[in-house]
């Protein structure tokens, strides 16, 4: 039986707070942690399937043109080689998140260097890999593919454009104004587990073990790519070794494995090499961003401008949503926002860790620091003065707004000195030391979700959904929500995820997983509670459950009388989405040291204070925040995709040369959870966490670099060469 709940109104009843088990919010360790660290949690490529052949993708060595011939004979005689697949249905790009349709197909047309064009299948992985390198492919190359985003006429993303009032006039009249241009380099998701799939056919039924974030969309994408019915497909993705956006949609290996398995009549495994993951899946677009801020003599914004240029391949709908939080974070009645996309022939640009704010906020919050200096007020104070009463562009209230609390509590916990700020005040030996801060903001996303909860006759519970756990703690928080509602220790709750046979959820992405699927579990549990209350003869509100018993001592097993009680919860965000602007907010504080001689920057300590609704598990929430802050160190200091200027290929395509922060770059990170209840965000009053922790943090570091050594940089990442170039003598 399915119970549908569409949320049109805020739910401020905070029912979860009235429950008696007392497990929600507790810092429980992850349920699957032991299995993971002992190697018993199978990842996509690790399933042992009899008679499985191995496929390796072949990628193009031209940037743009046509494949004129694939010489199968060049490899079919090599040891172990079984087949070459260059089916028209092979995908040449990864699907964008929530695309719900097949990504670009047709390996004959090449649109970027390194694009998959065929698959070689052999008995062993080594044989397939060797043969893939030897496959002879001929091309008809088209010259003159556009590669430089600044050298083409970009397209305007009209739905992002805002012209409100007269910004130019406001800038001219302003007591203080800032007009600066920032750049950010491309980023890679850099998940540990490479993209992998094993496909297996049983007649016209297909089962695929894959590493994916959003099965509900992925199954549709795969069905579309293969031109088959979804009913005939089963996707399994029980453990995912990180996704960071790169596994939102299906990638080339999933379709290639399915086609190859069909062609040779055997299961086929395809694992992308690290280089291929970098070169064929998703990049975050580089950006160029102009920020214009006009303020009165008190620092109150009168004008706000944010224009961004990003890039993508022709035919891709995704444009890095750089302005997402700029639309509502600060006031200023004269507004000018615009997003443009340059069509170039680099690999696909798509969702990579906090698309939009991850790079938009570092630019905006850097510019705010420049403004604070001009106005001559503390940068925390500048932010406090500019928090709008309501959404400055749309006539909408905020669902909740914790920015001021985060700024204040964060400053307090960090020991922020709000005295006058001047760069180059502290030096220890070779090192300049300074502090900086920035606001955090990330839009709250939520989506339709279904989950089945079964209260078993034995008094344990089972939660089933196709939701994925990409290492974030989904297994654990769902056990906590169900445990809290049903009065059970989370150890009594078995959570089964990552299988399209279960009711469908939205998957993990855009930080929407916990709030969406948690709400579906909540809805299902609530009805089960109603059933139980009926049996006891009281109302659901009166029903108190803990440790498997009612307040009057009746056990769940007695109430169930030997029967399972199963309900499917179906949560759907309703009108509420149009009635409020909902976002997570926060504040970052950083202390850095910058080497006077070498320009090396090291983060000494960093703190983030975040408000994102209800905390479902203090430990996994904190871990998400720490992970986010760590990525913001990468954005600030090290991460940069480098593309060859002549053919657009990605040159630094492994983890040795694409520099994510290492342990030694990450100091003690402190997290302040500014707990709140946001009834408009979801029926469990929770919002997204994962991405918020990296939305703006890079600016706290950039601003601290300036405060430390006087180098004001406008280009991320702030590598030693750039710091030195901007360092005053």
């Amino acid at each position, binding site marked *: 039986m399915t119970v549908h709940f569409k949320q049109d109104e805020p739910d401020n009843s905070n029912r979860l707070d009235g429950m008696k088990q007392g497990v929600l919010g507790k810092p429980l360790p992850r349920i699957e942690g032991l299995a993971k660290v002992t190697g018993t949690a199978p990842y996509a490529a690790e399933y042992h399937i009899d008679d499985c052949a191995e496929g390796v993708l072949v990628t193009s060595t031209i940037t743009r043109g046509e494949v004129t011939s694939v010489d199968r004979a060049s490899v079919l005689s090599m040891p172990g080689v079984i087949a070459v697949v260059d089916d028209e249905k092979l995908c040449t790009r990864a699907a964008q998140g929530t695309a719900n349709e097949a990504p670009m197909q047709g390996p004959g047309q090449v649109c970027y260097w390194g694009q998959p064009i065929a698959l070689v299948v052999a008995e062993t992985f080594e044989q397939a890999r060797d043969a893939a390198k030897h496959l002879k492919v001929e091309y008809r190359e088209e010259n003159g593919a556009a590669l430089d985003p600044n050298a083409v006429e970009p397209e305007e993303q009209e739905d992002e454009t805002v012209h409100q009032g007269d910004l130019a006039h406001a800038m001219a009249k302003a007591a203080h104004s800032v007009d600066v241009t920032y750049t950010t380099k491309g980023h890679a998701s850099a998940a540990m587990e490479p993209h992998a799939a094993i496909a297996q056919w049983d007649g016209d039924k297909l089962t695929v073990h894959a590493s994916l974030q959003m099965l509900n969309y992925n199954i549709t994408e795969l069905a579309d790519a293969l031109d088959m019915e979804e009913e005939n497909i089963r996707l399994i993705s029980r453990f995912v070794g990180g996704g960071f956006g790169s596994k939102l949609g299906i990638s080339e290996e999933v379709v290639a494995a399915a086609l190859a398995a069909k062609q040779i009549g055997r299961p086929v495994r395809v694992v992308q090499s690290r280089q291929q993951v970098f070169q064929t899946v998703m990049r975050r677009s580089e950006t160029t961003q102009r920020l214009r801020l006009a303020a009165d003599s008190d620092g109150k914004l009168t004008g706000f401008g944010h224009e961004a240029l990003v890039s993508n391949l022709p035919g891709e709908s995704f444009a890095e949503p750089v302005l997402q939080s700029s639309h509502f974070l600060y006031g200023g009645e004269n507004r000018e926002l615009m997003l443009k996309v340059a069509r170039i022939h680099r690999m696909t640009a798509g969702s990579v860790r906090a698309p939009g704010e991850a790079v938009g906020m570092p630019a905006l919050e850097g510019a705010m620091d420049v403004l604070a200096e001009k106005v001559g007020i503390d940068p925390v104070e500048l932010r406090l003065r500019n928090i709008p009463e309501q959404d400055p562009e749309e006539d909408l209230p905020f669902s909740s707004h914790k920015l001021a609390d985060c700024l204040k509590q964060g400053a307090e916990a960090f020991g922020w000195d709000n005295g006058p700020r001047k760069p180059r005040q502290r030096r220890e030996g070779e090192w300049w030391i300074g502090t900086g801060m920035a606001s955090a903001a990330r839009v709250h996303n939520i989506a339709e979700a279904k989950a089945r909860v079964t209260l078993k006759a034995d008094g344990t519970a089972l939660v089933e959904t196709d939701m994925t756990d990409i290492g974030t703690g989904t297994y654990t928080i769902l056990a906590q929500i169900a445990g809290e509602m049903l009065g059970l220790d989370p150890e009594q709750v078995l959570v089964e995820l990552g299988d399209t046979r279960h009711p469908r959820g939205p998957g993990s992405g855009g930080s929407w997983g916990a709030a969406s699927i948690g709400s579906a579990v909540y809805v299902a549990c609530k009805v089960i509670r109603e059933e139980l209350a009926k049996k006891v003869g009281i109302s659901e509100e009166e029903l108190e459950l803990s440790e498997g018993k009612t307040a009057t001592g009746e056990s769940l097993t007695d109430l169930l009388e030997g029967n399972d009680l199963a309900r499917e919860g179906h949560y759907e965000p309703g009108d509420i989405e149009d009635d409020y602007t909902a976002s997570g907010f926060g504040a970052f504080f950083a202390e850095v040291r910058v*080497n006077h001689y070498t320009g*090396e920057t090291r983060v000494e300590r960093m703190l983030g204070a975040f408000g994102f609704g209800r905390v479902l598990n203090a430990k996994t929430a904190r871990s998400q925040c720490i992970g986010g802050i760590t990525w913001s160190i990468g954005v600030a200091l090290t991460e940069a995709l480098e593309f060859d200027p002549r053919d657009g290929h990605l040159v630094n395509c492994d983890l040795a040369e694409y520099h994510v922060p290492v342990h*030694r770059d990450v100091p003690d990170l402190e997290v302040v959870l500014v707990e709140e209840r946001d009834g408009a965000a979801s029926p469990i009053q929770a919002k997204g966490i994962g991405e918020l922790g990296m939305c703006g943090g890079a600016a706290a570091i950039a601003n601290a670099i300036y405060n430390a050594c006087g180098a004001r940089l406008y280009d991320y990442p702030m*590598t*030693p060469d750039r710091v030195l*170039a901007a360092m005053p003598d």
Partner: protein
Amino acid sequence: MRPFQYTRAPSLAEASDMTAGEDTLAIAGGTNLLDLMKLQVETPGQLADINRLGIADVEDTDDGGLRLGALATNTETAVHQRVRADYPVLSRAILAGATQQLRNKATNGGNLCQRTRCFYFTNIDQPCNKREPGTGCGAIDGIAKLHAVLGTSDQCIATYPGDMAVALSALGATVQISGDKGERSVPVRDFHLLPGDTPWIENVLEAGEIITGITLPPPVGGTQIYRKVRERSSYAFALVSVAAIVELKDGKFSRADLAFGGLAHKPWHDPRVGEALLGQPPSDALFDKAANILLEDARGFGENDFKIPLTRRTLHAVLVQATEKAA
């Protein structure tokens, strides 16, 4: 990876015999070679495993120096009590490289022979004169942030990427080599070659020659510094590095052995730099003069232009640190 034969070389002589053939490479820790084989940058038909040749010890030499077996791991070498006490610059250089896991596997001989990290060298679908003579150099007009500013040629601008050899160069160590023509010793400073017109020839090893060890001269004391500049603080190759052994007597430099990493196809040792310092009291002007000599012929390729001022500043920092310590 091309299919290959794996053979454990039973003796040094047989290892030499095997590797004298075109198609055979020695494998030590495999941390560099196997990666390159997976990418088909290296495609040997046979690997001769040299791990069991009895050349893995670290031993005192008669003159009070130290002999590092070619097959001793980087970790064993870096933590060796005598290396730490008498050759701290070497210990620090090794520990500044790669990661603990890699250093546990990486050997001293393999470290000397590690190949460049040039992006075009490691991508077989791009031109590279080093990997495929005559195809051109992808890096010169490409992404060359890591590349050399000294001793480049119009054929190749790659760097030797390692750290250990930079310290060995400053220490004036020698490499012991064994081959079918017998044994020979080559100063580390002469072991690596500049690219010239033959960028694929990276060092003086002839076909069939195996490095058996590295000999360190008797300890010289002094203040020993290894400074490695990089954007992240571990697990990254040097943008620029400096190995320095410095001593002051009566306020003047009495020793200044300096070598540089990240600048060239070999650890860079220019005797004129140290000579300029000897007998002089430390001063900013003197440090500048030393940097001028070092960088006289330096030439950037756009993206790596920054290495020139960075080297100047890093040398300055190292000399300040060394003289403050020594004073």
